[in-house]
């Protein structure tokens, strides 16, 4: 543990639901940017942003792909905002068995938004760039955070789950044992 503060670059995409016109250009651009070769194909089914549209209830909600889950939620909220009802799923970016979003159509593998970080020269992520009516806007800001709040790598996450399961002592013993055999 340390109590050092570090600055972290926080990237946000703000969504103004009232401004969405349902054009799906964000889906098209995202799928193009992530296709191999880059811009090789456009296909909304492969996009990491999807616009949840229910025309009759005036639901237009762009959501970005987040984590994967093997099981859908058992119970879900229904939100009423300004007299309009939304399902919880309409705000949820999880690649989830309850729906088609955020899965590669061929393999079914989950898709995840990476904020277009593959191309560091981009001033803004692609979905934001093409959203001309400013439903999506991009904000980057510096935030002072505890050093430990830095995103942890895969190894740390794995170790942590092992410690949760077996306790710190046992994990350390195991590490000593295994490494002595090498």
């Amino acid at each position, binding site marked *: 543990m340390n109590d050092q503060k570090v600055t972290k670059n926080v990237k946000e995409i703000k969504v103004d639901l009232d401004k969405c016109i349902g*054009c799906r250009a964000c889906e098209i651009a995202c799928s193009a940017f992530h296709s191999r070769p880059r*811009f090789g194909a*456009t*296909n909304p089914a492969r996009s990491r942003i999807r616009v949840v549209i229910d025309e009759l209830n005036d639901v237009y909600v762009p959501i970005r792909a987040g984590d994967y889950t093997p099981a859908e939620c058992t119970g879900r909220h229904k939100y009423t905002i300004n007299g309009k009802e939304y399902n919880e799923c309409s705000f949820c970016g999880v690649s989830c068995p309850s*729906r*088609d979003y955020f899965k590669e159509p061929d393999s079914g593998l989950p898709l995840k938004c990476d904020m277009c970080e593959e191309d560091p020269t981009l001033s803004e992520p692609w979905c934001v760039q093409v959203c001309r009516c400013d439903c999506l806007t991009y904000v980057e800001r510096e935030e002072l955070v505890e050093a430990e709040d830095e995103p942890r790598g895969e190894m740390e996450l794995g170790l942590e789950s092992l410690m949760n399961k077996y306790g710190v002592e046992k994990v350390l013993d195991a590490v000593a044992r295994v490494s002595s055999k090498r």
Partner: protein
Amino acid sequence: MRYAETGFNLEIDLSRGSIERVETDPRLTPLHLGGQGTAAKILWDRVPPELDPFSPDNLLIFSTGLLHGTPVPGANRTAVNTFSPQTNFYSHSLFGGFFGPELKHAGYDKIIIRGKSSDLVYLWIHDDKVEIRDATHLRGKGAIETGALIKEELKEPEAQVAAIGLAGENRVYMSTIEHSNSSASRGVGVIMGDKKLKAIAVRGTKDINVARPAELFEICDRQYREIYDNPNCGCVFRHEDDESWHINNFAWGNARERRKGMWTQEREAEWAATTRKYTVRWTSCYNCPKDCHISIAYPGRQRYQLKCYSKLTYSMAAYEELDFNYSILGLTQEYGLDGFTTPQLLAFAVELYEAGILTDQDMPGFPATTAERFFWLVEKIARREGIGDVLANGVYWAARQIGKGAEEFDHNTMKKFEQVPLKLSMVNFPYFLMYATGEKMNITQIEGSYPQVPIADREEREEFVAGWEAAPERFKRWFLDWEPREHQSIEASVNIADWNETMHYIDDTIGTCAFLSSFRGQFGGRPPYHIYNLPQFVSCATGMELDDSDLWKIAARNRNLIRALNIRRGLRRSDEKPPEDHWKKRDPEMEQKMLDAYYEFKGWNSEGIPTRKTLEALSLEYVADDFEQRGILPEGEGTPLQEAVQRAGNR
């Protein structure tokens, strides 16, 4: 590898319940591109001219555009083609939204429907899985409501649905096919209803290959931004409260009169408040930044989306305030009734009643106010009940069935089809030609590249021409010399008609929206798509190397093939005239000269029939052969022998 197109059509026979995925002939793409063009070829090959449009063998074809499913912005117009029972000619309709690109991603360029189901069904296309499903539980359901119900029962919120309403089920001639924020009008819903096909739902997740993807994406990204910034494209009235253009220029009632002084500031404020009250959101079509449609919530009605001038058509036909239009549209869109022709039909019926031609006997319980009468008539027509059964055949046929002088009230049809309610003073020759010779039955599908009126100020005019990238040089010259209240020369008129329609013929093959292209040059002269930049989009997507003249030639080929479809069904020069009273001041002699010149320019004979020479130059020899076999063209016409004989005869 095939680029931009999937290379497969879906063939559905509703009589036999069969479904086939059929590979298409790749040689047709360079000849016709796709969309309406390749659909015309299928209609030519497979629907003989004697065939009754209500025959099970009539085809109903849904065509994606060649550029659907590519990143080309605004490429989302699905073409629907068949033969119309109203005109007995080729029927052409377009609808936007999301259907075409979805179908393409499902792996199909077209859906070709033949046969008739014994009871109401719908089609469910999910990539390779295609089913014909029972739709009897959807009978009588609204067209938009049907879409929602189907998505729910399939648990496929992402499916795109095109459906007919009650009017289509009952084979009302002016019935539409409704999808999302768009409708297919001009006589295609009636055939879908005749085939007992309630809806088509489609979901597609496959990739579409394009030839030069990175280059294409780059020009499309630029184009998308340009479209957003360009004030001269999309529906320019969509955020406007000032309706004076339509209110002052279009005719009210049964296309009867223009009402000067009707549009005042007070009315504008009132109507604006009405619109605010019901507006929920502006929406666009697939991959287009122009939000041309307004989602409307009218109390007690199904939510619907408003498009272009149907905002006013019912109010103007009924001499009513705007609220009436919002109310009746909520009903008629669910019934699936065309918002352009239906109001005229209703106004026509009201006129017949007032003239004593239709009586209380024909119309028991006919209400007293025009607004109530319109609602009364809509219910009868959508159900084909009583007088509604007659009116459901459109103004032309209803007038003849009713008789007793009703024919006199049919003053705004052409080729048996209701026209835009425009009554103008002085004949305009390019417009005369477009009305008379168009195969698409509605002027909005023909006009659009050359301005409707000259610019009075010389300097402004020069400025306009200087930045007019969309126009071939000759049009710049003609426009520069065009003074107010002057006619355009024969040569200019013929060329203007030709250019205007050519741009539509291009859009209708590649699937780009006319609001970004063929329809949008006439106001402001800065359409995002035009003859000089379209080739690059098509080339990058398809890999075909072509330029503006190639594109023009393909459009001419499609134009002639579609002409041939109608010629084979009996269309002749005598049919080619605009509504009698479209212009107050006509010039019959000059009009006929214009028509002669236009036919000659097109390479058609004096009856408006494409000659063998013309057809051969467009690789349409098979049309010429067919014409000769049927005696439509004299045999051997245009051959050296025949020309020698003619020369000898002239001596």
